[in-house]
């Protein structure tokens, strides 16, 4: 079994990364700061003005390490790939499937099924743990909407119905998302999802964690040789990582959203850790970003039981497992895509 490796997140501006033998060397203005053997890493994420030597990039490409460049605030700029990327046979099978409306709807249904079930599990967990402190009736109503969506998804659906279920479920879930925030701080009031730019601290956290999730999912897809751009639920749009977005859906509620909720509810992030710009856009400060990155890394180490493979594994490996299961489904090795259901 593949091991869960670390991701190197570089947030210090002006950092220079280079290769020395089998090591990544991290240099700042003050000189060499760290050095990490390449084989303990599965990816490097650079925020803002971080430079990488071409030899390091080449080495990462060859060793299968994903390298992503993001803006300081976490918007994806570019990813670097090595000499061999993807598997042409697998990609052709993927494109054929994506061109087939029936097969696409089948895969989209699996993805949405897990998103709905996992969103519902997050709401139920909140009711169980904090039923006395939250607006239980409202959350209960959202759970019934999700129950209804889940019930309909038990039957095969076409793509429009699948998208309809997704929209309805997402609306019900985000309608009550704010109720799961227990912090008194008005900085964490949540009036609904918004992005590009996020207009409040909660959306800022959500967007940032989704970016981290996107890096991990995208690199897992690339590692198994599948094309992260061609999705089934998310249709092709140049520059959009459609399949990565498909595969992210099942992880959003229990991995990303719950991480944001616990960071706020455990007061690991504070309202003063966010900066409001003239335009109304809200960004987190450097310390807050570090807190989020550390929490994300830590969360990935938590062990879970994989519901389909029935094996215990660190959550961070679930991206790779799901990417592989997706590749198996695409190649017809499996009679469908088994998403990750969180209990």
């Amino acid at each position, binding site marked *: 079994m593949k091991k869960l490796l670390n991701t190197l997140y570089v947030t210090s501006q002006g950092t220079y990364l280079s290769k020395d033998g089998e090591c990544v060397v991290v240099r700042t203005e003050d000189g060499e700061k760290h050095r990490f053997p390449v084989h303990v890493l599965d990816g490097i994420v650079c925020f803002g003005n971080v430079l990488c030597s071409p030899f390091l990039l080449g080495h990462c490409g060859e060793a299968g390490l994903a390298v992503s460049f993001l803006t300081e605030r976490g918007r994806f700029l570019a990813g670097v790939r090595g000499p*061999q990327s993807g598997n042409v046979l697998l990609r052709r099978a993927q494109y054929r499937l994506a061109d087939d409306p029936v097969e696409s709807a089948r895969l989209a249904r699996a993805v949405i099924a897990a998103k709905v079930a996992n969103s519902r599990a997050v709401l139920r967990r909140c009711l169980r743990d904090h039923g006395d402190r939250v607006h239980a009736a409202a959350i209960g109503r959202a759970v019934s909407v999700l129950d209804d969506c889940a*019930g309909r998804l038990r039957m095969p659906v076409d793509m429009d119905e699948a998208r309809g279920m997704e929209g309805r479920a997402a609306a019900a879930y985000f309608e009550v998302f704010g109720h799961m925030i227990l912090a008194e701080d008005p900085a964490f009031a949540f009036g609904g999802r918004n992005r590009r730019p996020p207009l409040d601290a909660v959306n800022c956290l959500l967007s940032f964690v989704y970016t981290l999730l996107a890096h991990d999912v995208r690199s897992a897809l690339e590692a198994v040789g599948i094309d992260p751009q061609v999705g089934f639920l998310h249709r092709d749009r140049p520059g959009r990582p459609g399949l990565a977005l498909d595969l992210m859906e099942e992880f959003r509620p229990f991995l990303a959203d719950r991480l944001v909720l616990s960071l706020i509810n455990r007061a690991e992030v504070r309202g003063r850790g966010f900066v409001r710009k003239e335009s109304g856009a809200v960004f987190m400060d450097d310390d807050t970003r570090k807190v989020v990155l550390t929490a994300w890394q830590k969360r990935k180490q938590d062990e879970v039981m994989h519901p389909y*493979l029935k094996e215990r594994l660190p959550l961070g490996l679930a991206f790779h497992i799901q990417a592989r299961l997706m590749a*198996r489904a695409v190649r017809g090795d499996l009679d469908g895509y088994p998403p990750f259901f969180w209990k």
Partner: protein
Amino acid sequence: MDQTLPLSALQHYLYCPRQCALIHVEKVWEENRFTAEGRLLHLRADSGATGRRGGIAEDRSVPLRSDRLGLYGVADVVELRPGPDGRERPYPVEYKRGSPKVEDWDRVQLCAQAMCLEEMLGVTIPEGAIFYGKPRRRERVVFEKVLRVLVEKACGDMHAMIEGGEVPPAEVGKRCRGCSLAGACMPGASARVESYLLKGLE
């Protein structure tokens, strides 16, 4: 045959056709302790060039190829031993980290090496040897007819599978436990997806 394949593919194929397909059709590779140790052992064998040992000339890391079998590769060591006619005859020696196996895999690989050498040099090679790291002992291998037929058959089947882009289903068994590709293969992933989906939606 459209393409030549590495000699190691033949051994993978004999061990498990799916493993071979995962590597050569799906391009999956994962290093584990065993493959890493094997690599290091080979690194050592590859370090020297030609030399003499015990009066026998030997050539190391000898490139091999056979158009007929559609194979290419490198022999760890090819010794040059005097044949019955007094002329030197190649004698391939392969290094393995483990212990001798009951199955034919290693012998087939060595025989394939010999058949490559025969095609390249226009000679007949009656035998070779495998050096096993565990008992640190050489095992003689005679390239008899049965073994040669096995090589030909396995090469043909393997090429057909890879050129067809086929990945055969997993045959779950004891071999899966020692397999470096178990993580990518997921031999256990065969449960019906639809019933799994319905259960998840409950």
